């Protein structure tokens, strides 16, 4: 795309063409995802250390997580990644209605994930399986079983916040798409949100076996 072909409305003044703008956004997004991985990296490191110090506690505590709900949530989140990818594909083909539909399904699946998480959390809170000084449950053998729940709530909690942020962004995309901002020429925000959403999904794919499955 050249300057002589006219200046598309979405092109910012400091870029020479749409290609440069898109490539910049992509690189920026990948760097942002890198910072997200390092943010979670600290917590994964804490998980590894406390697990290696307290293998029995981690074993005894993990059986109190609900594997069925965890598996269901994994399926929900992976499906939402698929619908997100389909939303991007639809906009690449210029199909606005299909894009809107896929974005709405993604949003709904994200909400389902959080609702399931809510039931899991409230059950834990009810039993007193909580971090640190709030831990009141007495059905787990070993000293300091609360450390498992500290790490569990920190990691799934931070992940939950990321799901919320993703939902806010997808909701914004729905509004922008219905206002006809995007086209087969310009769909960068949808694509970037997709990258973010896949990362949120990917982090859950690590959290799920580490907490629910490994004994």
């Amino acid at each position, binding site marked *: 795309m050249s300057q002589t072909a006219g200046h598309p409305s979405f092109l*910012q*003044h*400091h*870029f020479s063409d749409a290609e*440069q703008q898109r*490539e*910049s956004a992509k*690189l*920026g997004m990948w*760097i*942002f995802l*890198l*910072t*997200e991985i*390092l*943010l*979670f*990296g*600290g*917590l994964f*490191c*804490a998980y590894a*250390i*406390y697990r290696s*110090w*307290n293998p029995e506690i981690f074993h005894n505590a993990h059986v109190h997580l609900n594997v069925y709900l965890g598996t269901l949530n994994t399926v929900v989140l992976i499906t939402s990644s698929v619908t997100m990818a389909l939303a991007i594909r639809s906009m690449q083909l210029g199909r606005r209605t299909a894009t809107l539909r896929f974005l709405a399904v993604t949003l709904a699946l994200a909400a389902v994930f959080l609702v399931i998480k809510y039931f899991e959390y409230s059950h834990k809170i009810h039993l007193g399986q909580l*971090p*640190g*000084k*709030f831990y009141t449950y007495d059905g787990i053998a070993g*000293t*300091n079983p*609360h*450390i498992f729940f*500290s*790490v569990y*709530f*920190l990691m799934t909690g931070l992940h939950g916040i990321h799901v919320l942020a993703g939902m806010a962004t997808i909701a914004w995309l729905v509004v922008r798409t219905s206002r006809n901002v995007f086209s087969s020429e310009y769909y960068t925000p949808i694509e970037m949100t997709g990258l973010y959403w896949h990362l949120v999904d990917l982090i859950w794919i690590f959290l799920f076996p580490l907490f629910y499955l490994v004994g």
Partner: protein
Amino acid sequence: MNNLPSSSYLNRPQGIKSWLLTLDHKRIGLLYLFSVMTAFALGGVFAMLILLELLSPGREIIDADTYHQFFTLHGAIMIFLFIIPSIPAILGNFVLPLMIGARDVAFPRLNLASWYVYILGSLFALYSIIAGAVDTGWTFYTPYSVETTTSVISMTLGAFILGFSSIFTGLNFIVTIHKLRAPGMSWFKMPLFVWGLYATAIIQVLATPVLGITLLLLIIERVAGIGIFDPAMGGDPVLYQHFFWFYSHPAVYIMILPGMGIISELISVFSHKKIFGYKAIAFSSLGIAFVSFLVWGHHMFVSGQSELAAMIFSFLTFFVGIPSGIKVFNWVTTMYKGSISLEAPMLYALSFLFLFTIGGLTGIFLGALSVDVHLHDTYFIVAHFHYVMMGGTVMAFLGGLHYWWPKIWGRMYSEKWARVAVALIFVGFNVTFFSQFILGSQGMPRRYYNYLDQYQPLHAFSTFGSWILGLGFIVMAIYLIHSLFKGRPGGANPWGALTFEWTTSSPPPHENFAEIPRVEHGPYDFDRVTAKSTLGETI
């Protein structure tokens, strides 16, 4: 004589709103300049008060608790509010797009957001002063930071938020350097300051999130008692130190690398000679960035990490000396047989060479495991990092500020008063901090409110030095502010430099360049090209 251009980024568009909502990287650089220099003045006042208190043993002006709060505020403000954003966010923002021939950074809105995030984080940090200033030291070590009644949360939340500002800047710079270089500007035609900013940005992006999660854990630990750093609850306080230094050691290279970039510009331009070993300097920046992630354990030689780990960290620490040494040798070789002119920016560059070399070599002493066990937590450490941070980064920052001052404002400062200020700052700095090397080697512990009589002469010497230093900065503030109104116009290229930012008018127009410049020569080809100084006289 030179005239100021009638229309520039400074006067078009006008109005306070056009500044607060600006997307222009030059204006954002200036917003940073004013806010970061305010933080620097505040941190400096705390430094002067700490040293005044240490003039003699016992109480001078403040009690012990206040003293602990003051040195914490000095450290936290200088690190998080001043030195980390100083060179990248002020000078980097202003000159990076100009140097690579771009119209702006890749994400102008993110750039403005980083400034607002900086202001928000600063407000949280400053709120802690009113709310019972934090007294843990700027490192916020657990378990004390969990137990103390002072306002740890607002300060750490401030630092957490400031981290995002730093990440935004770093992310923006990486993308800008990758994607927005002018046609023909290959990687090895980039000015070395750009290489310095690039290496810095990589560390900002990779290390800062780890500080973020660390401070978040500390806040949650304090609020909710999750026990993750509390040994009584199965947690580990040393894990906090590992997390903290995994960021904070690379962070010292966030502070020094852009400074090294500035020095490469200054030495070449004021020696009127092609830089010696361009690629070696460029790659050594990346080398420092890489090694910086492998040495954090040298802060914890006496914290109870394993002996093997300590030995490995000690060994790896020596590697930092190699790329740093490569740079120093290349700068010195650049000056060899150059035609050196000693304006203020070059005087700062020379100060940097002396002081950074002392700071770097003492860093090697401290990296040696057995020596560190003796010197750990003494004034030797304090002197070492002030030689690197102030003797290194601040000198480079001031050199860069004077070098680009005529580009930023279009006006020259008073060269005579600038030299007076360099002299005062150089002498004052050495009087203040060289005495601390001796104090530390004699066993004076850092962060102590009171001390034995035998240390009094050196403490007093250090305090006198701080007054000379303070005077130097006051002189500088006066002539710099004066130059904004009365300075004579310096023209597009007062120093006769060859990089792109000097090809456009001073101050530059809103769009930076009337036409995107073409690369016709390397940034330091003084052997092939002569750029005449626009000052119109021999300087």
